[in-house]
């Protein structure tokens, strides 16, 4: 009998514990692209269409875009109506209008050099009312970019929406937030209360295809998550907007989601170009990026405060205590970006 044994010893092994770090990659031959970002919906409102150049990566700040001024911007419907958009600031074109459900709309943008850009006509679909917004608190732990373990509580909002049977809907949720902020500092004589507009869903993309579920109710679909912190100490008001878009737009956001969620994992799709609904009629091969959205809209407000979140106490930012750090905004809350001293009329006392 022959027995052969292998004993592996002293092996230091961190199999599959991959590491990620930043490297320099030489990118050349980059060219700017014309980009369009615009939306119209079925509520009477001022709508904006932004015309700009995409930012070349590695040159300056990727988030600052070169505006394209002097364009003639119009939105047209299938009934021959036309709405002129006027340049309010460089690259931003605005008009007050209201879309009508069932009609088809497109935009036509003629640049100063004569280049004509058109979007594919899209039908405006009605958005069913949001039945209910619910909130949930979850304790999570994760590893941050620096590799540290972090534990925090998050607030997640979910939407429940009933939609007509046999209807295929493509929905997207967005949330706007305003929170109440109380000044406090040691030996304060008088303190103010500010109402701060909060960009709660920045880079948050939540879309939904009703064909993926059974029945005709979307049950508590989570759509935005934010950290449970001082913003909820008094009251946080969410304005939830539910957009009903076309299937083509849904596919656009789906690919946007693919592109922005690429994280180097095994299952990453090879990246490609996100194709929007815009084209240059003079040169169909030129790639115009961005999207002109035609959507139905329905809205609902949700108030989150310690009571509605079932919290005994949520620590505010500012204290009168000398033993706590005093942040500058605790002495003057109007220094916070997008803050306002006027209480919104919808505010629950």
């Amino acid at each position, binding site marked *: *009998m*022959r*027995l*052969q*044994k*292998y*004993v*592996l*010893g002293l*092996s*230091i*092994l961190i*199999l*599959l*514990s*991959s*590491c990620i*770090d*930043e*490297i*320099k*990659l030489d*990118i050349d031959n980059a060219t*700017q*692209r014309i*980009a369009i*970002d615009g939306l119209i919906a079925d509520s009477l409102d001022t709508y904006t269409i932004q015309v700009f150049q*995409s930012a070349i990566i590695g040159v300056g700040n*990727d*988030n600052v*875009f070169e505006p394209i001024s002097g364009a003639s911007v119009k939105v047209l419907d299938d009934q021959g109506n036309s709405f002129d958009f006027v340049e309010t600031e460089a690259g931003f074109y605005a008009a007050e209008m209201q879309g009508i459900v069932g009609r088809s709309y497109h935009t036509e943008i003629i640049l100063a050099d004569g280049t004509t850009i058109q979007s594919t006509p899209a039908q405006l679909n009605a958005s069913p009312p949001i039945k209910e917004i619910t909130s949930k608190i979850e304790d999570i732990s*994760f*590893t941050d*970019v620096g*590799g540290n373990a972090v534990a925090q509580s998050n607030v997640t909002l979910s939407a429940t929406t009933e939609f007509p049977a046999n209807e295929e809907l493509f929905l997207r949720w*967005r949330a706007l937030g305003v929170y109440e902020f109380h000044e406090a500092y040691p030996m304060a004589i008088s303190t103010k209360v500010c109402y701060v507009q909060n*960009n709660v*869903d920045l*880079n948050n993309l939540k879309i939904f295809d009703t064909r*993926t579920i*059974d029945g005709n109710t979307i*049950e508590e679909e*989570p759509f935005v998550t934010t950290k449970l912190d001082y913003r909820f100490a008094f009251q946080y008001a969410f304005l939830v907007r539910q957009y009903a878009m076309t299937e083509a737009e849904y596919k656009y956001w789906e690919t946007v989601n693919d*592109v*922005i969620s*690429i994280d*180097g*994992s*095994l299952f*990453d*799709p*090879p*990246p*490609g*170009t*996100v194709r*929007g609904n815009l084209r240059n009629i003079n040169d169909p091969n030129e790639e115009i*990026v*961005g*999207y002109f959205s035609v959507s139905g809209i329905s809205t609902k407000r949700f108030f989150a405060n310690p009571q509605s979140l079932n919290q005994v106490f949520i620590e505010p930012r500012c204290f009168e205590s000398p033993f706590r750090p005093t942040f500058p905004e605790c002495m003057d809350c109007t220094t916070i970006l997008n803050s306002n001293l006027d209480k919104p009329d919808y505010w629950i006392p």
Partner: protein
Amino acid sequence: MLKHLLLFLFSFLWFSMLNAQEKVQLSFGDANAETQEVRLYGKIIDQSTNETLPEAIISTNNKLYYAIADEKGNYELILRSGIYELEISYLGYETLSAQLTIYEDATYDFQLSEGVTLGEVTVSQKKKDDNVTSSIAGIEQLSIEQLERQSKLLGETDVLRSLQSISGVSSTGEGASGFNVRGGNTDENLIFQDGNLIMNPVHALGFFSLFHPDMVDQVTLYKGGVPAKYGGRLSSVLDVRLREGDQQKFSIKGGVGLATSRLALEGPIIKNKVSFIIGGRASYFDWILKQADNLDVNKSEAFFYDLTAKVDARLSPTTKFGFSGFATQDEFQFSDEVKFDYSTTTGAVYLKQIIGEKINLNANLNIGSYQSSLFDIRGTNQSQFNNQIDYARASLMGYYQVNDNYSLEVGAEQNRYTVSPGKLSPLDENSSILADELPQERGQETALFLENKLNLGDKIEILAGLRYTIYQSLGADQVFLYDENVPKSELTIIDSLQFGANETIIDYTGFEPRLAVRYLINEQNSIKLNYNRSFQFFSQISNTASATPIDIWQLSNYHIRPQRADNFSVGYYRNFQDNSIQTNLTLFYRTIQDLIEYKDFAQLLLNPHIETDLLVGEGRAYGLEVSFTKSTGKHQLDANYTYSRSLRQIVATTTQESVSNGNWYPSNFDKPHIFNLNYFIQTSEKTNLSINFTYSTGRPTTAPVSAYSSGNILSIPVYSERNQYRIPDFHRLDVAYTIGPWGKKAGRENSITLSIYNVYFRKNAFSVFFRQLPFQSISANRVAVLGSAFPAITYNFKF
């Protein structure tokens, strides 16, 4: 009578020849006597124990005369009088060579000595000058020494990792499933283990292969010329043979490691007639993953096992029958987000029959199944996605040695594939995911083949084959018809066709010529030319940069034509110093028609009209391979360099359908420069040092060149044309130092190997991705899978 002739088996597969032994000189009779039939007989025994060696093989080196020793070790070789080179071989023993001059009946007993330690992998050795004299260019047979000297991860020798040290063989990176041969995709390799077709040869994301290292006998890779008996893949054939179980005595081999353990048991069922070998492996990575600081890794799980079994029965001196099969299972979970598993179950039976002295027949039947599942275990929409391919394969081959200079092989083969391309099911009652399932697809591939081997004098050998293949896409299925003037999409469907069960939907037929010519300039120099055409009727559909275990297999059908490759290669082989230095220079060129590519962001899962997300184009690959091997002496060196390109072109009527505006662009595995080096030093009688270095150009990637915002999404990258940039170059140094063997008596042996994988902590990128943190610029980030050094100590002992 050549009773124990097993011509088929050994004429093709057995290259077991001498290595360092002195030649035995035998001379019987008077050379002036008339030519006649003479008989050489005697015993073949173990040199040290005098045990007889049943089934030892004695043959002339041209394989024309054969004999196999019977149960008592007796052999009888009948041959025409003359001068021969004899080879006497037995599994696990060093092959003995003898110079035989025979003009009358004679008797002689041969003594064989137990071979070099077979170690973890047993691979038969090829003839010293095989590289020069064989007619097919680009056959790689890995020897045990070559395998053992290659890089070891965690002290483990692995067949697939070792293959990547061969010129022309590469992979997309550490952790990629499969390998790429001469610019071909991973799905273009035909992989067999004992006649079992293998769809996915890897365990644990590609860190290990599923070939049980204690059971492998022989590894053959055809990267250039492919014999006519193989078909259905474009790039290469990897044929792994397991060894037969010991017909005399039982034995156990095993290994215990920190991450995996293995065991193999073998022995006779009926002594000298029926033997078995059965082996299994299992992994336990989890405790290691639990040590990681990274929470995602901490919450991950990985597990695999495999079970391999083989039974061989000698029904009569001319009939052999056997079974070989295996079952494997892999599970992998990353954090609490995604989990997948995959498994292979396959079995094959064979029957070999020798008829007369010159004909043998070989029948093979294989049935197998590969299935994979992807689980989404996040949140409320938990789901499971399954796909599966079932296959059955039957082949019949006959070999006829017409005369000394001409032999013929004919055969037929049929493959049936049933693909279940996708089934989505909710994981629990609370999940709101809708169950969905695509209908099964069926395909049948039938091939007839013929191969002639002809020697024209001493210099020229020609291997000319032809394969005729009929592929049928079979119902029941529904086929959509599209408006031909616009790109295919769901919206351009104009009609559909219904086909009943087993009704032929469409068929594709074609001839696949195979040609290999060797011109021997002299004993040390030869030139080889190869041309072969192949078709491929099913491909792995993957829209990830590297192949993954859960990729779907897509059969050719009404809309998807079979891919076709034409391969050309010319090689110059030159040996020096009595074949101890072997050099080779090969040029290759390959074209691929009807190559399958994907549209950007193709929807491949559960797509009932997948043809709308596929693109068809052309591919080409070309390159130059140079290799140098010095395999004797204190300092041994194996070095090779490959320059190659792998390019694709997708031209369509609209920009949306073309890739990179219809220009040629590099494939995902286009790595122009690859250099491999293996330096082995016998530092003393009992110690040796092995140094491995590998370098390759970084693989292509598509990088963002600009960014824009859309709605509340601040920065959406705009990508370059496909694969216009490259990730950083790959290079790595591994060393291993072995002390031993010592205590070599009564079969006991000890040795210690100290090895370090990735000595200088190179963070080789598996992939590069681009991300943007809020209000910061987009940055390139690399993912290094094995980003640090991995030292290991292996203690081997045997008794």
